[in-house]
């Protein structure tokens, strides 16, 4: 990662030789001035040597390409990858620990792995490893979010992919490369046992949880290749967080309202919080739970084992509107008495 800007692109910050003089003139060794030595090679008085290069490119395009490759890889292997985002301390790691242990109980042989993003410590990955699930810590340093390339790198070091293959997820060609841009051969294999994972829904063949850096702003913009973002909000925070950080809640597939065991001691207005979340994202799904005492955890586990399905409330709304339209039409077209 580039330590200067934290961008992870590996570009150099070496000093390029800046021209010491006015842009349209070059000074040679004898002190002579050369005008019009630019690409055009002609000097047109009053016309600068500037030209325009049209780029029209997405600033996040490079990240998005890496993310697309990750997504292809996850999908082809039936890996459900989720990107957990929240403010610091809302309970991501605690929730992950309880989730992993509960999943172990329900599906002892389901391959699991965790990527832990943090600016500084390795503490969270160690907490995960204590559950027996492999975890890799990514320290972002000054960086306030994970990016898709970090995920590619971390995923390649996790045993999840090997575990899937050990569980019978075989490749057609043993020399098959997993990082190329070709569609993964798995989805084309005729009798492939995981081919049903290539599309939405169904029980995943494995799960990858990514705990992003505690920050509700920056991670909203960086696609990691996940199936969906899960925004975790705890009841010790303000109920208006969805309105204060609308980009994140708009980007999330699921909101988890955590620490509900504390509700009796607080005056947190749950309904208002849910309304705000739906206001920025009418499609968002919501699960209320306590990572500490396990209340509500089953709904979350069911959702995970169902492959984190998106609920198309929009389609339902469209159907409603169409029915209404049909009713109105029938009224208008009805013969007058």
């Amino acid at each position: 990662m580039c330590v200067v800007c934290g961008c992870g692109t590996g570009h150099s910050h070496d000093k390029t030789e800046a021209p010491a003089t006015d842009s349209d003139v070059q000074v040679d060794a004898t002190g002579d001035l050369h005008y019009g030595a630019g690409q055009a090679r002609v000097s047109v008085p009053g016309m600068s040597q500037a030209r325009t290069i049209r780029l029209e490119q997405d600033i996040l395009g490079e990240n998005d390409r890496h993310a697309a490759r990750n997504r292809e890889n996850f999908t082809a292997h039936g890996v459900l990858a989720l990107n957990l985002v929240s403010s610091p301390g809302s309970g991501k790691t605690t929730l992950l620990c309880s989730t992993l242990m509960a999943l172990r109980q329900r599906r002892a042989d389901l391959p699991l792995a965790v990527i832990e993003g943090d600016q500084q410590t390795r503490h969270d990955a160690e907490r995960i490893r204590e559950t027996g699930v492999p975890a890799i810590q990514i320290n972002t340093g000054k960086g306030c979010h994970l990016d898709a390339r970090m995920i590619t790198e971390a995923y390649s070091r996790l045993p999840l992919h090997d575990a899937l293959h050990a569980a019978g997820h075989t490749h057609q060609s043993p020399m098959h490369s997993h990082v190329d841009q070709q569609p993964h051969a798995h989805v084309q294999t005729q009798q492939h046992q995981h081919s049903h994972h290539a599309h939405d829904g169904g029980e995943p063949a494995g799960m990858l949880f990514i705990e992003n850096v505690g920050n509700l702003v920056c991670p909203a913009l960086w696609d990691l290749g996940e199936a969906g973002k899960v925004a975790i909000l705890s009841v010790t925070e303000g109920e208006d967080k969805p309105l204060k950080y609308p980009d994140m809640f708009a980007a999330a597939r699921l909101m988890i309202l955590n620490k509900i065991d504390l509700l009796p001691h607080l005056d947190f207005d749950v309904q208002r919080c849910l309304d705000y979340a739906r206001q920025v994202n009418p499609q968002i799904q919501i699960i209320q739970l306590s990572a500490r005492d396990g209340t509500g955890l089953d709904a979350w586990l069911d959702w995970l084992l169902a492959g984190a399905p998106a609920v198309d409330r929009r389609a339902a709304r469209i159907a409603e509107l169409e029915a209404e339209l049909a009713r109105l039409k029938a009224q208008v077209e009805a013969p007058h008495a």
Partner: protein
Amino acid sequence: MHEVSLAGGILSAVEAAARRDPFVRVSRLRLEAGTLAGVEIEALRFALEALAPGTLLAGAQIDIEQPPGQAWCLDCAISVPLIERGAGCPQCGGFWLQPTGGTELRILDLQVEDH
């Protein structure tokens, strides 16, 4: 402060452009950051200016266009302005809004000098 990494991404894109089609400096960089793109314009400008010295962007004028938020209201079946995420439809007050504009985050063009 993800604007810092966005600025790094912009600089990388500029350097890549210079490898394809060499130039020595950028005199003007034109960006587009929609009002719903999740980017603080002033923070982005600050980050670019902090990063610029010693790079192709040194001394470049930075113009950032901000396309306004626009959304399709499912209930009204019209396109409406959307000032910010979470704001209601100005017609019906509802929230069934699909942003259709203002989410752009792009480098438009560079004015470059060859010597």
